[in-house]
């Protein structure tokens, strides 16, 4: 039932913007009112409009592979640290000290600046009970915010979209890349994905002769409109082909085609006109955040952006690899923050990192570390409670769980904080139960 409503309103949306209506990106008033009427359930859940033009924005940055938290936020004064890592342990002199006990990896100069200027909160020892050491299962746990002993079908951000963002604008969630993160999986598939704004449209091109392009584009649009309502019943009797199952692959393709069309014009117009206000590194992460900065600057009504950086699975040769990755991370995020600041948008933006797990305390025989458990999360923004939050888990062998750090903060209390204090929505329906939000913002 809900599926049909949203698809129908998306079609309405398309008709308005594409076939001659004004290209305003606010949800037309009559649609907003229709939604309020339709959201009969959960009267206490404030339904959020998708015109996030002045709303708060969350940027989720996935560090894929399992970043070694111990060499990122370094307990340099701890003997256990140096004893466990004779080869890959970082020397005290090199570490960027935050206090008498911990410091940042030397390549994270960008983060150090953010810390010093009160814009970086470090959640120490983030993890969950019964940690899982499989990349895929643990990533799934972080993406779905489930207990490690249960399986949740939808992502935590997907449940946020379902609960709080029922509306017709597909750009409420934007992922920079090719694949949608499991975090976005929702009952109502939501979100768009892109990486190159210029190509983010149907390009009639080819051997179109002058005047032919228009026909091509018009035909393309009509071919990609899902079935009309039951009112066009005359043609339904003549339909051939297999019975359509709800939730079939074709349904999904049609919905995606519609979302692409609805979001294409606005995104391209923003990307073409908005100038970045900072210089971003030329890495994939740098470019992703650069595009996010443009889209925010261009007032795309997005609430959640998602970017990712891969390569953290450092079983071997950790020193060089992690240095390169963390430098990219620190520099890219710094540039993004600077861009936001110059735009005047920094107060609206919160950036949160996560990784599927940290790594084992003891190094292995190959200059690396194996899959571990608890690790730090970084939360960046103008409004964060800057500093070291949570507690650094003890590295003492007797305090470890199967060689791994025990968590001190359940990551879902970080999610709860983000949902309640930043996105201003109740976290319990989204996370499945109550998690006391960490005081982060």
């Amino acid at each position, binding site marked *: 039932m809900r599926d049909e409503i949203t698809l129908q309103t998306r079609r309405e949306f398309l008709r308005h913007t594409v076939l001659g209506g004004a290209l305003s990106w606010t949800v037309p008033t009559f649609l907003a009112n229709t939604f309020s009427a339709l959201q009969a359930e959960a009267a206490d859940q404030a339904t959020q409009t998708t015109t996030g033009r002045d709303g708060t924005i969350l940027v989720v940055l996935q560090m894929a592979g399992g970043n070694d938290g111990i060499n990122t936020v370094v307990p340099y004064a701890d003997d256990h640290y140096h004893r466990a890592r004779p080869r890959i342990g970082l020397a005290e002199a090199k570490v960027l000290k935050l206090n008498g006990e911990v410091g940042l990896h030397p390549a994270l100069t960008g983060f150090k600046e953010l810390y010093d200027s009160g814009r970086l909160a470090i959640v120490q020892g983030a993890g969950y009970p019964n940690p899982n050491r499989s990349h895929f299962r643990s990533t799934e746990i972080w993406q779905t915010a489930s207990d490690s002993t249960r399986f949740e079908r939808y992502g935590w951000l997907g449940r946020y979209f379902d609960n709080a963002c029922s509306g017709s604008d597909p750009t409420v969630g934007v992922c920079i890349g090719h694949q949608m993160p499991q975090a976005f999986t929702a009952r109502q598939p939501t979100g768009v*994905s892109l990486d190159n704004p210029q*190509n983010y449209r*149907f390009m009639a091109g080819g051997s179109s002769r002058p005047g032919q392009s228009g026909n091509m584009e018009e035909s393309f649009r*009509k071919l990609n409109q899902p079935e009309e309502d039951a009112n066009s019943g005359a043609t339904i009797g003549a339909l051939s*082909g*297999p019975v359509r199952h709800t939730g079939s692959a074709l349904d999904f*393709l049609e919905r995606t*085609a519609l979302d692409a069309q609805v979001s294409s014009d606005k995104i391209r117009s923003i990307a073409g006109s908005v100038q970045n206000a900072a210089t971003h590194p030329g890495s994939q992460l740098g470019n992703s955040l650069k595009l996010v900065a443009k889209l925010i600057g261009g007032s795309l009504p997005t609430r959640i952006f998602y970017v990712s950086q891969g390569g953290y699975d450092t079983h071997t040769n950790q020193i060089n690899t992690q240095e390169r990755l963390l430098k990219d991370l620190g520099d890219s995020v710094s540039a993004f923050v600077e861009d936001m600041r110059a735009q005047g948008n920094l107060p609206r933006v919160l950036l949160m990192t996560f990784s599927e797990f940290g790594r084992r305390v003891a190094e292995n025989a*190959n200059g690396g570390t194996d899959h571990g458990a608890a690790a730090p999360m970084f939360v960046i923004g103008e409004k964060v409670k800057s500093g070291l939050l949570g507690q650094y888990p003890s590295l003492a062998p007797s305090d470890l769980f199967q060689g791994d750090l025990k968590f001190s903060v359940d990551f879902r209390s970080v999610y709860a904080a983000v949902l309640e204090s930043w996105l201003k929505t109740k976290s319990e329906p989204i996370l499945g139960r109550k998690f006391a939000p960490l005081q982060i913002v």
Partner: protein
Amino acid sequence: MLSRMPADRWDFTTAAHLLNRAGFGGVPMEIGRLAVMSPAQAVSWLVDYERIPDNTTNPAWAQPDPERAERLRAARNASPEERRKLVQEMQKNQREQIVELRAWWLQRMACGPRPLQEKMTLFWHGHFATSAEKVRDAYLMWRQNDLFRRLGTGNWLELLVAVAKDPAMLIWLDQAQSRKEHPNENFAREVMELFTLGEGHYTEKDVTEAARALTGWSYDRLDEDFTERPMWHDRGEKTIFGQTGYFDGQDFLELLVARPQAARFISAKLWNFFAGTPPSPELTDALAATFREAGNQFKTLLRTMFLSQEFYAPSIIRNQVKSPVQWLVGSVRMLERPLPPPLVCTGLTRNLGQDLFAPPNVKGWDGGLSWITTNTLLARYNEAATLLQGDVAPVAGGALANRPNANRQFVRRMAQLRIGAVDAGKLFTEKQRESVDALLPALERRLLQAQFKPEQEKVLRDYLGGQPELTDSAILNAIRLAMSTPEYQLT
């Protein structure tokens, strides 16, 4: 369960379904040939492929290189400056060879005489997903690909042991470095979690004990081959799956394959790959039983699958999203055009989310609906223009987004490449081109082996009807439109 398709249900649609799934599709004539056979004959043509000669040659460098040892030695003894240059040159060669390797394999898929053998090679590549980005050796990647091709439809244990000893795999999952003092768990974990049993069917203890059993299985860089290092092997007693013994790698793999779950896991995965949807528990049981009774031989399982009524259920036919590789290979087959140049092919599939020889991680590609995002769907629509009209711009744009450090000049040059258009005259007879009414069904038969919705047929009719005449250019544009639909993404 798994009762055979009767001959009276066999027709163009079912034959097309078989060729699309067990291979990469084909032109109406090829489908027609299968349609007039009995189901058993059609399936046999695909499954018993050794009867079809295959004279494809391998890339020139796809063999051990005796001079490589010399070059490595020279690099070690050179000055830092020279060493850097030598290393840079070796890396450049490697990158070029991988591009060549990709093109070589795509060519096999597009033109080779044994569709199922290539499709199974693709399955194993996604299953034992190994990336050249870490292995960094085109010969070793080719060798693994060749292994999948040779052993991919044989016996499960034989294939598994060969893969465990495969140099690319030894490097990829760090098995090559595993020794008794510090057993490396990476391969031991993934072989259970991803390759044979699935999560929840082994314990952490099994992983660490298996890692001990595997110590000593290693890789010799000079020989470029598997080697056993007795000094590295942990000779002690291990307990795996509740059994105790002085297990080595071979013993461990035998224990693995003997688990009932092993047959269920791989049968279900194969069904999901070919049918496009996970099998029900009952179907999994039936497939696993077939597999075990056949002594874990894949051919029997495949034949049973492709002959089963379940495989041709309405919910299965045309309900699978084409993978990027399937999209590319199937399209060039249906359009009867040559594959684009290697670099363009790389860009084409990469923009759609699949990079052969560089899977995102050891789990391979999730497949199914995950191939489709607003990004990749638009890319499919635009890359259709590349295949039809030879316009490389859509590919170049994607390349720049993916590799920001790519040489901009190179990308610009690529965007200006013209790679030749499809010859519409090859695809349709004169009679079919006489009128829109004659052309449209022929177009649907070739591209979909099914019909568009009536509203869509009307759009195509209107488009073609609006042209002064049915020129090649107008026909290609119509095909472009047909390929830019949700329907075309399904197989």
